[in-house]
Each structure stands twice: as C-alpha cells, then as structure tokens.
C-alpha cells in the first residue's frame, strides 16, 4: 500500500516536472482550437530569444549580466488557456508595415491598412525610408503569427491593421481618420502609437481632439491607445541635458526629456508606457516623468554578441525585443553591412549566426519605448479578447491594478536620494532629506517609488509598474464593475499665485483649494508668464503637494530646455515661455487620493546658464484641473 502511494506520488511528481519542462500546453480550460491550440510560443524557432515572453527558459537566462531570468510579461499562462488576442483589432500607426511578411500576413486585415504618404491602402514603407522597418517590428511584437516560423507576438491571433503615418505634418482630417474616423480604422480596438514629438521648446499646450474622441469608438466603450514615453533619458541626439556632478564624476540623475512635453501624452485616454530591460529595471534610454502609466519591455540600448547576450546591462548592453523585420537582407534592421562591434551577429547579413538562424534577414530585434509600447498593446489585446466588454477606463484600471513593482530601491541608488544644489551648475550635495520649503537652495529631485495616501505605489520611472499579462487577463475575465466611457474635460481653475519664481531656490508659488470629494485620476497644471518677463522653464522644476501630503515632481530643474540643443541653428534660450505660451504638465502620482483640501505648487529652480538671459524673479500665472477616477 505504502509502495503504491509512494509510486503514485513519484508519478505525479515526474508528471508535474514534465509539464514544467517540456509540455507547453495547458491541461485544462483550453478555449482554442487548431494546430497550435493552447501552446506557448515554444512552437516558434526563435522563441528562445523572446525573453519578454518567457524569461526563465530563454536563451538569455544563462547570461546573468544582461538578463535576470525572470523578468517577462508573465504571458505564457494566458497562451496556455488559448487566449491569444482572437477577435481584437490592433492598429499600428507607424512607419508602415510589410503586410506580406511571412510571419505577419496571417493576421493582417488588408481592409485595415492605409498609407498617408501615397494616399493608397498599401502601407509598405518606401526604400528611401531608412527607418522603414520600425512599424513592421512593432506589428510583430504585438501579433506575429504562431505558425512555426520565426517569432510570436504577445497576442498572436489578434488582427493587425497599420498605416504609414509618422513623419508628416498631417491635417486634422487625416488625424481623425487615423484614430478611428476612416473606414480602415473605425473598427480598431487598440491603437499602438510608438512615436512622439521632440519639441525644441515648451510647446503651447492644446488638447488633442482626435485622441479625446477615442471614447466614442467600440460602440461607445472606447478604443485604447498605448503610446511610447520616449527614449530621451540621456538624450544626446537632440538635447544637451546636463548631468549632475559629484566629485569628479557625472550622473544622469533625472530624465532629460519629460514625456509631458508632448501634449498628446497629457491626454487621459493615452496609456504612456516606459521601457524595462531583461534585468528588470529601467532601460537606460527610457524617458521618465509623472504622466507614466505602465511599463512594458524594451530591452537595452546596445545589443552585442551573437544574439544580445554579451556585455552588461550596467553598460547599457543586453538583448532587445525580437520581432519581424522588413524581409530580405537589403533593408531593415537586419541587413548586410552592419557595424560588427555594435551589433548582434544575428542581425548582420551573411554572418555565421545570421546564416544559421536568420538567413533571409526576415527577423531582427528592436529596442526603445517603441518596443515596450507594443508589448503592452499585446497585453491589452489579450485582456479585450478575454473580456470584450471592457471599456477604455477599465483597461487602464486593470493594467494599473495588476502591474508589478520592479526595481523597488532605485530611488536610493546612483545618488538619486541626494539633494542637488540649485545655486551652482548641476551638482549633487551630501544631503538626503526630502524637505521641501521656501528658500531651500538644495533639494531632492527624485523620490523613487512612493506610496501615496490612497495606498497606491507610483514612480516617475515606471508609472504603476510592469505589465503582468496573466494577472491582467484574470482580472479582465472576472471584471464586473465597468466604468463609464464618457469623457468629460474638467474645467480649468485658477491657482492663487503667492510668489514669483526665484532661480536658485525653492519657492512656494501658489495654492489652490478644492472642496470636491472623490478619487483623483490625473492632475494637470497649465502655466504662462505673467507680464512681460519670460520664465526660463529649462531651469524650473514644478512640484505639486496634495492635501494629503503626497509630493509629485511634474518637471525637474535642469531639464531638456535648460541648455542649447545639438540641433544646428537652435535659437532656444533656456526654454522661455511668455505670456502667450501656455505650458502644461500632469501627474498620476495622486491616483486614488481624495482631492479635497489645500494643494501647494512649488517652483524648484536651478540657476540658468548666463547665456540664457533669464530675467530675475519672473511671475507665472497658473491653472489646474483634476480628472476624477470614475
């Protein structure tokens, strides 16, 4: 009897081990049919390089300097249930798509394609576009087919549409067409927007009507839009952001670019997405700011070795996101003639690894928040496939609630828990206090992860955390408390200004009081100079303190507008705004808190460069508005 029990236990134990090691299907609740029913991406030859889908069994798990072996989207359990994006239409607004790609065409709906350059339905980028492979990569990350070829997307049975969209100053009519107004876009459930603008100065804030009309789509449930946060944490291509000096060394203490500087990222329906690498912390390039909602996976800056396994993440090296490339070795990110020292061999046409694993250069890898956004878009497609009744607010809510905290101690690393001097050129002091009072000349400009008074963790680096497909789909399936889809803009109200900006110190700029009870979604501030003196916003950080004591950093001093850019003939001078320029910022850090009570706005201002000719003690006028979490 005992032997029988022991044998049974042994069989069960072996069986369990077999399931976790080799069987990639679920033994229960499979809702999918067909040759790949409820199988993971292990059916695809390049799946081992898709660490974002299965880190533990990925090729990169054996390279601890670039991959921790467990950071992924937690998506396999969803695939094993047969949930793969069926019935969901995803629109890729990008550089275009190669719709006949061998690993995409099964999922492409030709009736959902457009080319704004040619005015035709063929979204293939022209050979003159050196970045033409971008959209094909994005599409593959979302929904490359499961077919035994190449790679697999996060939602491999979602339907793909796409447009050649970026790079043009489109008309408003074209923007409305792109975001659901045209026949080819009207049935979109999720838009992926892996693009943004890189303004040379604080842009005049205006609403983006086509984004704020998205709640009308999907029969009134609202379409979802996932947008990249930007890749300018340490930008050297456009901006010349200063680094912060400590001793003889310099540190990129805070993000150069602020995602809020692109007004589209201030639009409530837009899910702004940061990027993390395979080590489970922020990709070195991923811009940071208080409009971040969620984090996806984008990999590191430079991919070297055979597949991206060489180097170290601390040196900004590591694997990126494997996907579909423009076919052939003559163009795309995988092609002939790439520089050997800065490129994984997989991508270099004709290299031994390329010949073995990617002989036609049909596949590649891409990084950036351009990659992290489609990983989140894929997760959203899975959620909507599991529960098509979800509205746009529900999707945001579920992503937020199920996100995982990563890199929990980053706020104490790299001198981020130190104050910076405001009276000198950017330098780091030895003080670590979070104190924020009038007249201070040094102050913390990064708080890391913060738990607000509603008990919700938020980070300017990661938003609410890393997307978790399994948890999100589970919550989507049981979700019943649907939120209203209607989108109403709250009125702007005045901030009572009590002080001028003083460069080189902290000033309590203004206050406002709200009497409304509720739960906060987003808080926005808009500001312009009062009178004739312009304000050099490149030196001015804006901090906002809620009635319950949470402080959010909406912008930092010494930001992207502080110094001249590297753009030739740049005439920008410290990011000046006048009385005719309305500049806006936003924050999700107060999410869930009760807005009732007294709010305080601080200007935390560094010392402008002398060449900027910033007038002393300029005045700002300011408005606020608070979006309620429905």
């Amino acid at each position, binding site marked *: 009897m005992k032997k029988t029990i022991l044998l049974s236990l042994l069989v069960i134990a072996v069986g369990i081990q077999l399931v976790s090691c080799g069987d990639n299907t679920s033994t229960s609740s499979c809702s999918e049919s067909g040759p790949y029913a409820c199988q993971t991406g292990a059916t695809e030859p390049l799946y081992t390089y898709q660490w974002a889908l299965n880190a533990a069994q990925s090729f990169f798990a054996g390279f601890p300097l670039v991959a921790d072996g467990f950071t992924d989207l937690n998506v396999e359990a969803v695939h094993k249930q047969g949930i793969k994006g069926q019935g969901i239409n995803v629109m890729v607004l990008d550089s275009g798509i190669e719709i006949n790609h061998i690993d995409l065409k099964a999922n492409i709906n030709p009736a959902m394609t457009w080319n704004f350059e040619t005015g035709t339905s063929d979204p293939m980028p022209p050979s003159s576009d050196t970045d033409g492979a971008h959209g094909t990569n994005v599409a593959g990350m979302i929904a490359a087919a499961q077919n035994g070829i190449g790679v697999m997307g996060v939602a491999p049975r979602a339907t793909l549409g796409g447009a050649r969209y970026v790079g043009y100053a489109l008309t408003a009519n074209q923007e*409305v067409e792109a975001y659901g107004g045209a026949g080819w876009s009207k049935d979109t459930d999720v838009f992926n927007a892996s693009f943004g603008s890189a303004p040379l100065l604080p842009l005049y804030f205006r609403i983006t009507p086509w984004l704020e*009309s998205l709640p009308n789509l999907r029969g009134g449930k609202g379409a979802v839009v996932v947008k990249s946060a930007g890749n300018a944490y340490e930008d050297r291509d456009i901006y010349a952001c200063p680094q912060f000096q400590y001793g003889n060394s310099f540190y990129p203490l805070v993000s150069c670019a602020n995602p809020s500087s692109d007004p589209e990222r201030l639009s409530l329906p837009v899910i702004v997405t940061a990027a993390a690498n395979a080590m489970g912390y922020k990709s070195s390039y991923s811009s940071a700011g208080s409009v971040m909602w969620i984090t996806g996976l984008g990999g590191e800056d430079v991919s070297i070795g055979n597949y991206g396994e060489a180097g170290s993440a601390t040196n900004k090296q590591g694997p990126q996101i494997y996907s579909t490339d423009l076919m052939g070795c003559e163009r795309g990110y995988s092609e002939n003639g790439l520089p050997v020292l800065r490129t994984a061999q997989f991508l270099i046409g004709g290299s031994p690894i390329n010949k073995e694993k990617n002989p036609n250069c049909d596949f590649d890898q891409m990084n950036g928040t351009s990659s992290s956004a489609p990983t989140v878009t894929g997760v959203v497609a899975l959620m909507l496939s599991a529960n098509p009744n979800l509205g746009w607010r529900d999707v945001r809510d579920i992503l937020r609630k199920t996100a995982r905290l990563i890199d929990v101690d980053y706020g104490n690393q790299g001198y981020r828990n130190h104050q910076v001097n405001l009276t000198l050129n950017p330098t780091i002091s030895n003080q670590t206090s979070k104190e924020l009072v009038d007249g201070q000349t040094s102050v913390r400009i990064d708080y890391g992860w913060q738990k607000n008074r509603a008990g919700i963790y938020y980070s300017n680096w990661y938003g609410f955390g890393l997307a978790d497909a399994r948890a999100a789909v589970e919550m989507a399936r049981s979700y019943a408390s649907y939120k209203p889809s209607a989108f109403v803009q709250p009125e702007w109200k005045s901030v009572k200004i009590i002080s001028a900006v003083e460069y080189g110190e902290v000033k309590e700029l203004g206050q406002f009081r709200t009497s409304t009870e509720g739960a906060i979604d987003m808080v926005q501030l808009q500001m312009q100079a009062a009178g004739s003196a312009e304000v050099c916003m490149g030196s001015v950080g804006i901090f906002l303190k809620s009635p319950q004591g949470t402080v959010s950093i909406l912008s930092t001093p010494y930001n992207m507008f502080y110094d001249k850019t590297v753009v030739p003939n740049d005439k920008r001078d410290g990011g000046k705004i006048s009385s005719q320029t309305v500049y806006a910022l936003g924050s999700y850090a107060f999410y869930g808190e009760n807005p009732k009570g007294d709010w305080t706005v601080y200007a935390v201002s560094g010392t402008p460069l002398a060449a900027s000719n910033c007038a002393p003690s300029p005045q700002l006028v300011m408005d606020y508005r608070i979006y309620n979490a429905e």
Partner: protein
Amino acid sequence: MNFSEHHYLRSLLGFLFGCMLLTSSFAQNTPKVGSLLTESEMAAAKAKPGIQESKKIISVLSAGGATVNQELGKTIWVLSTGGSTTDPYTMVVNEQRAVGKSSNEVLITDSPTAQTKVKIAAYLPKAISVNYFDNMNATVLRFATLEEAAKACAALKTAMPDAQVSLPVTYSSPRTK
C-alpha cells in the same frame, strides 16, 4: 485622343507642373514645421497678418496688429501659403518663433454630426470641403484661407458652446525615434 482632349491634357500637365514648381520653390524658402525663426525673421513675420486665439475667442488681426494686443492667448502670424485649391495650407509662426502648418481647417468634436450639420450650414458655402465622422462625433471643415477658417472658427465657438471647436496647427511631426 482628339485635339481638345490633347489640349486639355497638356494644359492640365502644364498646370500641375507649374504647381510643382511653385511648391518646390515654396519648400525651398519656407522653414520646416517645428523649426525656429531668428529674431530678425520673427520681427519681419510680426508685420504680417495674424490670428489670435484665446480660450474663448479667435480674432483675425490685420498686419502688425498683434503687437499691440496684450490679451493672454496665442497669436500666430502667416508666413506663407501653398498647396492647391483642394489641398491648401498656410505656414505660420507663433510667439515662440516656432514654425507650424495649418491646413485651414476647423475641427469640431464632442458634438454629434447631426447637430453639427445644423450649426455649420451657414459656413458650408465658403468651405472647400466638409467631412463628418459620425462614429467619433467629429466634423472637419476646410477653407481656402486661414483667415476664412479663423473667422468660421470664431463664430462656431460662440454658436456651439458645448462642443470643442478648434483651429488645428501642427508644430511638430511625429518621430519614431
């Protein structure tokens, strides 16, 4: 092909070629969207007609008029015009010296198109096109000139207080990297 058809085709080709030359010349001389003018270029631009938009109203300003108007709001000055009769555009510059592009459109959102049709009826004769996006509660009117668009926009803001009525100007082109 008969003579008249041939003549018509030659005329059309000639016209199109002329447009291409015009466009090419324009493209060479006008700053790109998102670029910044120098102070002297800006001073010259401010002598041109402008459009001023505050939170509630839009005003069409005569040449140089913007310099004496201190009302809070944004002012744009016309740099040049271009395009064709069916696809016209206006290059502008704002107070920040940033160059933008308007397609002489008025965008109306947050208003069911059935209601919008009634409100905009008086402006349709002047518009060169109108597109209704029923599923998005959005309507786009397009005019031959920015001035006509601005005048229509100003009137429609008053006539449609519950809708979002705007005069879109693009100051940057989306980038993938």
